[in-house]
């Protein structure tokens, strides 16, 4: 056996795949990261210590078998690695690209304890595994699937819906996924910019799922009537509608001129890039001074999209300090590299107009107050610290609230007070028989990988109930 060098982790430095130089990458919306070659992937994988406590796996929301597949990559066993990767994550090539690994697996990595001892580059390897295996002809193994003669409708082709579809099809159900957009992916396609996740990657996943037997009905708005029909027609329905209602803040009215909700901005840009004709054209920020409000991943996506559109200046204003930013550190770093200016500890208070034209955002400086119950320190404004940040356009990325359609109530689906759907914590069932839900609409907006996890678990639960119902008696339990 190849006796691996136990000191590889610090003899070999952490190395990410090549990254496009800033000057080139800001010219278009393509993915900025390259891929490992086999040698680099093997070498980087070999840095894994194979800890007694795999903190990476523990931290990962889907609990990817990370040390195991790193070892397989090291040994050059890409198909085995892909099988294993896929066994916990139905969308590994996507998570490999969009997960904030620095907060999850790589952040928890034992080696992530100092500048010279950086974490194993888990995300890049995850991406390498799927990309390489699929390019070499690997396909999800559908052997041994027994049809159960049950049909499930999934509403929403975002990560939760796709993940659930994958699980259901492998368990022998018939699956149809409905989405109002003309492409699958939900936010994967329309929210996350191409420089993080190339649109072709999602399209590739679509064809894989279709090969497995998943049917998609796209561009279909599910209204009350349509839903009632689905509910009639299918044995179960899984709702994964996401959260699309932009959070509001006093003084920042997104209806005002020059102010755009982040998602509108990103979606319209995506349509543009996918050459999908819509009523509303892309919002073009070329030559403008842009201020992005917020500090999460969506804010970064806005920042960097604006840079690519040729904005004159992009400023990101966040009310806490840099440490407290909720998004991926990597994305913040990328944004900085691409020229985004950050202003921390500023609370937007209002908009300043001159001649009906937006000219700036009024802000107050903040300082960190006492920690709240969850240990997070709140931002307190400092009286008298008002100032204005010049702006021709403002993108608002304060996050999203659920957007529950009216027909949920018609079917007796109970909601939390904030609009999230109530489900049973293990069965993912709503208060309506045969209707399940998951993803952001249940949890509130969260990571892609969290939605993947919920979709995967919901599929298991739905299968269990569908098959249990079809069994003649309680033989299982008696045995």
């Amino acid at each position, binding site marked *: 056996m190849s006796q691996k060098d136990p*000191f590889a*982790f610090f003899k070999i430095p952490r190395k990410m795949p090549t990254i496009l130089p800033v000057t080139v990458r800001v010219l278009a919306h393509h993915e900025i990261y390259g891929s490992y070659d086999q040698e680099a992937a093997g070498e980087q994988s070999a840095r894994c210590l194979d800890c*007694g406590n795999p903190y990476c*796996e523990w931290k990962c929301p889907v609990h990817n078998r990370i040390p195991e597949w790193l070892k397989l990559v090291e040994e050059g066993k890409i198909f085995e690695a892909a099988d294993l990767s896929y066994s916990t994550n139905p969308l590994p090539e996507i998570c490999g690209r969009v997960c904030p690994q620095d907060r999850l697996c790589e952040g928890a990595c034992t080696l992530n304890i100092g500048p010279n001892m950086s974490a194993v580059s888990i995300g890049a390897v995850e991406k390498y595994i799927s990309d390489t295996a699929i390019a070499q002809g690997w396909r999800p193994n559908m052997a041994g699937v027994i049809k159960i003669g049950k049909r499930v409708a999934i509403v929403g082709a975002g990560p939760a819906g796709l993940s659930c579809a994958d699980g259901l099809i492998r368990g022998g159900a018939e699956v149809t996924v409905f989405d109002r957009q003309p492409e699958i992916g939900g936010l994967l396609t329309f929210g996350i910019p191409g420089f993080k996740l190339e649109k072709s990657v999602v399209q590739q996943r679509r064809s894989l799922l279709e090969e497995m037997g998943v049917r998609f009905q796209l561009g279909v708005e599910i209204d009350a009537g349509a839903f009632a029909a689905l509910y009639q027609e299918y044995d179960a329905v899984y709702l994964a509608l996401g959260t699309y209602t932009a959070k509001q803040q006093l003084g920042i009215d997104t209806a005002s001129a020059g102010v755009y909700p982040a998602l509108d901005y990103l979606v319209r840009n995506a349509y543009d890039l996918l050459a999908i004709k819509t009523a509303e054209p892309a919002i073009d920020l070329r030559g403008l001074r842009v201020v992005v409000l917020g500090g999460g991943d969506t804010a970064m996506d806005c920042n960097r999209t604006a840079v690519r559109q040729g904005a004159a200046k992009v400023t990101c204003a966040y009310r806490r300090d840099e440490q407290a930013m909720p998004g991926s550190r990597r994305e913040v770093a990328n944004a900085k590299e691409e020229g985004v200016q950050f202003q921390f500890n500023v609370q937007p208070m209002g908009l300043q107009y001159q001649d009906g034209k937006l000219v700036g955002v009024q802000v107050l400086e903040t300082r960190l107050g006492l920690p709240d119950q969850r240990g997070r320190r709140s931002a307190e404004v400092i009286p008298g610290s008002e100032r204005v940040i010049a702006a021709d356009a403002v993108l608002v990325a304060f996050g999203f609230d659920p957007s529950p359609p009216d027909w949920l109530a018609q079917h007796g689906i109970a909601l939390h007070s904030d609009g999230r759907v109530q489900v049973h914590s293990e069965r993912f069932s709503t208060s309506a028989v045969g209707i399940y839900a998951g993803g952001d609409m249940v949890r509130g907006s969260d990571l892609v990988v969290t939605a993947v996890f919920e979709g995967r678990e919901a599929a298991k639960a739905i299968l269990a109930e569908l098959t249990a119902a079809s069994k003649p008696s309680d033989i299982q339990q008696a*045995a």
Partner: protein
Amino acid sequence: MQDSSENTTEHAGAGLYQSRFEHDACGFGMFVQLDDQPQRRLVDAALEALNRLTHRGAIAPDGLTGDGCGILLRKPKAYLRALALESAIALGERFASGLVFVDPNNPAPALAALTACLHSEGLTAVDFREVPTDHSAIGAQAKLSVPAVRQLYVSAPASMLEERFERALFIARRKAELALAADNYFYVVSLSQHSFGYKGMVMPSALKLFFPDLQRPDLAASAVLFHQRFSTNTLPQWRLAHPFRVLAHNGEINSIEGNRSWMRARGAILQSPVLDFRALQPVVSMHGSDSQSLDNMLEALLLGGLDLLCAIRILLPPAWRDDETLSDDARAFYEYFSLPMEPWDGPAGLVMLDQRFAACCLDRNGLRPARWLLTRDRVLAVASEAGVFDVPARDIIKKGRLGPSEMLAVDFRSGELLNSLAIDSINAARAPFGKWLREGVKNVISDLVDPNLAAEPFPNQLLAQFQRTFGLTREERDSVLKVLAEAEVEATGSMGDDTPMAVLSHKPRSLYDYFRQAFAQVTNPPIDSLREHGVMSLVTPLGAEGNVFELDAKHARMVVLNSPILSQRKLRQLVLMPELVGPAQKGYGLLDLYYAPELGLQAAIKNLCVQAEALVQGGVVLLLLSDRYPKPGLLPVHALMATGAIHAHLIAAGLRCQCNLLVETGSARDSHHFACLIGFGATAVYPYLAYQTLYALKAAHAIHASVGDERQLGRSYRRGIRKGLLKIIAKMGISTIDSYRGAQLFEIVGLQTEVVNLCFPHTVSRVGGADFAMLQADQAKLSAEALPSAPGVSNINQQLDAGGLLKFVQGGEYHAYNPDVINTLQEAVRSGDYAIYQRYAEHVDSRSPAMLRDLLAIKPMRAPISIDEVEPEAMLLKRFDSAGMSLGALSPEAHEALAIAMNRLGARSNSGEGGEDPARYGTEKSSKIKQVASGRFGVTAEYLINAEVLQIKIAQGAKPGEGGQLPGHKVDALIARLRFAKPGIGLISPPPHHDIYSIEDLAQLIFDLKEINPAALVSVKLVSHAGVGTIAAGVAKCYADLITISGYDGGTGASPLSSIKYAGTPWELGLAETQQTLRRNGLRGRVRVQTDGGLKTGLDVLKAAALGAESFGFGTAPMVALGCKYLRICHLNNCATGIATQHPQLRKQFFTGLPEMVENYFRFIVRDVRERMAALGIRSIEELVGRTDLLAQTAGQTPKQRGLDLSPLLSEAGLIEASRSCVRPDNPPHDQAELAKRMLADTQLAIEQKLGGTFSYTVQNHNRSLGARLSGAIARKHGNYGMRDAPITLKLRGSAGQSLGVWNAGGLHIELEGEANDYVGKGMADGKIVVYPPADAGFIARDAAIIGNTCLYGATGGELYAAGLAGERFAVRNSGATAVVEGVGAHCCEYMTGGVVLVLGRTGLNFGAGFTGGFAYVLDVERDFVDRYNHELIDITRVSPESLENHVQHLDRLIGAHIKATGSAWAKTIAADFRAYLPKFWLVKPNAASLQSLIETLKRAA
């Protein structure tokens, strides 16, 4: 020796103690007049010898009750007649006599029954003389059970021949024993025409006071056996004193359970032409002590017609298979008798007496000492120690010691003294054994390459189904199976097993996980199977067993396997062999293990038993138990349950010896699995699923042979398993698989009585657990999930499970040190925030029950009190120790941080087994606890005096029965210097302490430690296992001050995986048993008890206290506080937290630990403890210790947890002692060491002022550890080497006791005219020891033993010159001393890492095993050294003047020094003709060392 109870389920309501856990050890010997001339002086000498061996026995807390002693006399006819005459008993020519113990209140029924039994055998009980006894000579405890003593005279009709008479006596006695089984007093001490015994629970000095008859001048005998007992327990019995009817035994039969069962199984066929044993079953007592059973066995063989020379050699054969020095005929004799009788295995020194012979012999490993001498007037004296028989040196014509398996016998018929060689010749000539074997034995050749692993490989899907059915995970496949096949050894792991016991788990666990391997600790030694490989054997004979009493060629017809692990090819060969499956045997019997679930597991197993019985009744010899052919809807009976049940059933049916159990199973994969199957009776095992899995890995190119050829992965796997199996049996001190088979050397944790009784009868199982229904449900779940696909189940589930038993895996088994626990603990100690500690404690304390303590809740003692009423923090901190972790395993930074933290807290850190840098002595970096472990690394006088506590690590929780390991890459220059080892060479400590082969040896080591550092407390660390309480009682009687009971979950730097997983039990069991046994014996007040193993929070501490611990050891948790992330890579030296590594960069860049973090941790614990105490109304730990009444069992969460019954842990039944905790500051030894004290007083000034000087003393064998007090005083004042230039010389005359010059420091020179016992120069750091015989000695010095066993063990420097022979294991673990002796026993220079040894004469076998440093010269006059050294690591070169000029000069200098020191006549002869002797010298060196490097060493030394 173990006492055993008939009843294995005696636990109900009676706590954890079981009488069968008792052990003992002893001093023993015999004096024999070769011409059979009865002499009174021999009796006097024996009584005096017992007296001088008092230190080898033990004394009860009453100070007067001994554990038992006695003598056995040969034919004291005149005396017996005189007694008869005085009592007016008329005797005929032919009579027998013996003592009988009877009920003092009602002796009549027993006497009547015995009389009747004698009568029915045609004998007459002439009279029962009342034997005078003086009860003032015995202690209070002995009085409680003292019997009345009668002397029975029996006469026989004149027509009855002598031998017939003897057998009739035996039959009558046996029948009386059966008839009077319920009479606890009735016991026949001896009853024979040839011998007469006295024994009792008395101190040696009191024997003749208790029996005034012994003082009669007319008591004369031509042979006297004597024995003094040390029982671990203070409830010994009168009947269990030695000698028994034929023998006295010093040692322990480790395989006793197996030997007893096999004898039970043979009951039905045990017939001699002269005696039918069938009506006398059981011939071998199933309870009592192992020695008693051995005595029964030997007596039966003798009465059945074998003579003593033959019988004892059958029971205790030498390691004949690999002994090149044995003749072919002798080997054939041993092989022939190995077929019908497995060895009675374990340490043994035996003295025996029958009508024709008096004899003495040792076990195959020479694990007990026996010294002998022969006087001019033809008296042979043998004893545990030299110096117990007073005879002037000029009257001694020969002197020696018995080596491994050596035997001496006196043939009274001829008056000859027979040695081993002569005995072998006599035995070999009994029959043409060699010819019979050549014709009868068929060896199955195993080394044929089996290129396919599996002739019919499973398709992938089927394979996966099998794997899932039998619970094989990816983890096991990759971490266990693959490593075995690739590297031919078990994988190494680190850290402890932090998973729950199987019964507590929420997952279905392998049945094997319920079985914990037995291991030897204290009362018997494990064997070093690596370095003493020659005594080990896995050879397995197949076929119906023959009758030991019939010498017949037909009994040599056997098929012999070299190991019980079968390949597919071998199994197929076996089931076709006409010898096994011919028409006479009606083929082989297939027992299919699949059953219909509705039948139920229990019924299915019973069916199998019935089937097996029918098959064997029908003549079948091979039974094949198989789970290889699954059937839809059916479940497999676990192979282990089937094997155990069938084995037990066939024994009960008297059929087991007529057949062999082959097991074809998917369940067996690692060495523990095989050990379980064989330990419960399997003859051989075919692990098909292991092979199929390896085959699939090979097909997927996922495995590559790193040894040999990939086609031979199966063979490599078997080799790996064989090594593991040897390790497991060696761990219990067993050397042959024959003795292990059926010996049931396991403790079961978590099975219900119904399962134990049916499948594993007589195996210890104390807390209940899973029943048949639960086990069936587990298998049903596995089998259902194993189906290739199921509707509605994702096909991803068809993959193997990830596993999670070794490492944490999400969704797998619970791990106590999981990421949540580690992360919160680290966050807490880094921030110092108690709120975060509480989150950590919440993770631990509110886990789903994972440890036994999680099922115990503490009840309040009182209403809540203010925290100010609870004892202060500082008091509590004193109760905390860090567990021993060596510098070497840990980096210096981590080791020091821990020491600093513990010192600052006022707690104690433990150095572990790796020395300590002298620069740390006297600073806050010094560890207050210094550990003494089997490797003795860095243990010097100075090390030992720099301690408050000296801890003898008998066993370690992670790997009890094995030594510590330090891989070579962790041995850097610093570590090598501190351990006196070579950089880069890995260190594996021996499994045994070579100076602790029995309980009295431990007493000696404790005495040694108290002599060198009288101010220190001595602690003994044991690992929890059934019987540990009894061992702890023994340890308390050895005068230990502290006892630590470790749980199975202790950590380790490196250990084979199966050791981490399968040995040791939870500390809750061991601690509770210890507490109960100590209190049962009135010993608790003498000794402090500590526990360690996975303690994490304040709640753990309180529960441990309630179960009986008054102090607490923490190992892993403080490491985690320092930054350990539980990576389990300690053995790789690449620890990415810089803790368990010696790599300079990792230590520098990655280690972020600070003493403050550890301090924070302990302060958190104390706060947690105090807050809880306040809430529970407890003021101090003292109040809580042992208050099991405050613990209550809580409801478990799973059916198995609910099946547990922890009431035995909480029981107070039979605990006579009021104190629940230690009430004395220390536990001072009985031996006041008066002479040593005088020596210290005499030399005090000379030491203080560094004056030197010469002092003379006369010494005796009971003056032990001489020199140690002086060395301690010297080291304290001047260090190890500071007094070199002003030496004190002790001139001694006589026989020195054990441990002469132990831990000798520089500046102490000891010159002894006379002889010394074991352990001379043990742990010597510097100085000089010289031993030579008196000038007028009547014997030839170079042929006579002059020093005992295990001399220079762990020496790091100094010089030793002895003009005579040394015993076994001379210079074992020597790492720096220079020594000259004139001959040595076996295993000389074992595991030596430095120093020089010159042997001017013959060596024993296995010279230089594990020898990696230093060198030796051996004079090989007989030219057979090549057969006597261990070829693995050393090479030998002739010392020629041309190429080795430096060595020639060095050798010459050494011989000169020896002459100067000892005046050796033999050395002078050699020196006088040096050129002629020179070519006969070998230079022995590690093969890794170049000659050049040795020369450099010489030059440096010169």
